[in-house]
């Protein structure tokens, strides 16, 4: 009862902060009226963002589904704008999700390989440690030259950004598994494969959860980075396009969308893993 009351109160506080930030933004848009280029204010108010700016998203609609595109001569319409946002969001999310699966899987496998045997450690540890030190953003042009506008390049870039974090997190988490569990499993007759499947993997899960949440933040950044340069679609592409014409309001709208998506993805991963952590004490499940 008490705990429930506190959760409710915390929610109200969060909501209050949220509304306050939105209000400050609105006030700022009224008192700071400088324009980047004529007609494009540095700070766009909400009344602009949800009408003109949203409508302008129709520019990026390629047509189809019975909703004609601006390029085909139609006027900007709300259906076209909504479809456009949905389509580009989907492109971005597909890149991120594929990158997460590929990068998370490879990062996890290589991270486990470090502790698997002396041989696999030698094979994996040094090269990956080296890869880790390369700055992610510096790799954007490299990936673009290697892969061009191919979607594989974008996915690999995201996978790389996520993979190195998951790798480091896995190595660390395995190191933190109490040796008593490993001894116990071995004494009860577990083979190495069984040991990894039934002891190491569940034992590292609470730590891996924070690692995945961390890598997700990087992942959203990486997918934008990949789309800046290469892609012909996706939210990053919309931002680049808007930047060329100093459409600050459009860039801001996409940024808002990013906040929403990132929050949803955090929430989703938290919910999904919370169910797998039924066994853990509540402090490890938050």
């Amino acid at each position, binding site marked *: 009862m008490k705990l429930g009351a506190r959760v409710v109160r915390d929610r109200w506080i969060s909501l209050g902060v949220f509304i306050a930030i939105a209000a400050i933004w609105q006030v700022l848009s009224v008192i700071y009226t400088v324009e980047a280029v004529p007609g494009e204010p540095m700070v766009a108010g909400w009344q602009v963002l949800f009408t003109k700016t949203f409508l302008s998203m129709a520019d990026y609609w390629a047509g189809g589904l019975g909703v004609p595109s601006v390029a085909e001569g139609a006027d900007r319409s709300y259906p076209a704008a909504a479809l456009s946002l949905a389509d580009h969001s989907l492109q971005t999310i597909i890149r991120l999700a594929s990158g997460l699966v590929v990068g998370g899987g490879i990062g996890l496998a290589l991270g486990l390989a470090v502790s698997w045997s002396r041989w696999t450690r030698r094979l994996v540890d040094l090269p990956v440690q080296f890869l880790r030190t390369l700055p992610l953003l510096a790799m954007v042009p490299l990936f673009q030259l290697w892969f061009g506008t191919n979607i594989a390049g974008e996915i690999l870039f995201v996978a790389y950004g996520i993979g190195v974090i998951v790798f480091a997190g896995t190595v660390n988490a395995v190191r933190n598994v109490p040796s008593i*569990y490993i001894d*116990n*499993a071995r*004494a009860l007759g577990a*083979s190495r494969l069984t040991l990894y499947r039934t002891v190491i993997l569940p*034992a590292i*899960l609470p730590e891996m959860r924070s690692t995945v949440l961390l890598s997700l933040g990087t992942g959203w950044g990486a997918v934008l980075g990949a789309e800046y340069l290469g892609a012909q679609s996706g939210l990053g592409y919309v931002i680049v396009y808007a930047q060329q014409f100093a459409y600050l309001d459009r860039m801001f709208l996409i940024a808002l969308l990013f906040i929403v998506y990132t929050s949803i993805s955090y929430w989703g991963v938290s919910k999904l893993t919370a169910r797998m952590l*039924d*066994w*853990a004490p509540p402090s490890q499940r938050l």
Partner: protein
Amino acid sequence: MSTNVAPRMIELVHVERSFRRADGTDVKAVNDVSFVIPEGEFVCLVGPSGCGKSTLLQMLAGLLEPSDGDIVVGNKPVTGPGPDRGVVFQKDSVFPWMRVIDNVEYGLKCRGVPAAERREIAWTYLKHVGLSHVERAWPRELSGGMLKRVAIATVFANGGRVLMLDEPFGALDYVTRHQLQDVLLNLWNADGAGTRRTVIFVTHDVDEALSLADRIMVFRSGNKVDDIAVKVSRPRTTDSLLLPEMVEIKRKLLHHLGLDHAAGLDAVADEAVA
């Protein structure tokens, strides 16, 4: 007399183990230890903290290699861990991510025992340790004593012929400890003298050793300094500890532990004689 004909289960020949400390010095945790334990014997290891009891057990379990010497269990040299030897560790070893029943089944599952059969076995031993009502619980929901019981059920269910317990009841209250001692003896004795498993039980508690053991080995700084048979018949009660031969053994043990002048011991001895 039956111990004379029982086959040798465990044999240690000049076993040594040293560790290198962080400061570069070597510690000899186990120093030239040799003994033979026949099948079915209940042996207690006593000795002060740091005398190498856990190290010895880990080597027997195959989790630690001796620096020198040979260890043979059931006529096979020990080269690694195996389900023929079960260990109840000093620390809590129950897997928190498996429900109680899955923990008890773990070893059987590793060896590919069919699901129905292993559930049956696990269930039997859970009942023996009095935990059948929490079979579906998570370990975090159990008390320390219950966790120890799960660990005991797990190694018994796994069916090893040698069981090693490292101060299993050290952190428990007096009542729980005595209950679990009974549970352990019942499991050990369940099917009569001929089928007993070999047990090595590490303890700090002299009375505990006296009420459980067929034989008590005393260790001091890595060396085996005494090896005492306890011939008092079973089942033993608190009164058994007052028998003159028990008091004599207790006096010896306390002497080894440097407690010659322990208060009250003489009074207890007088009482027993009276």
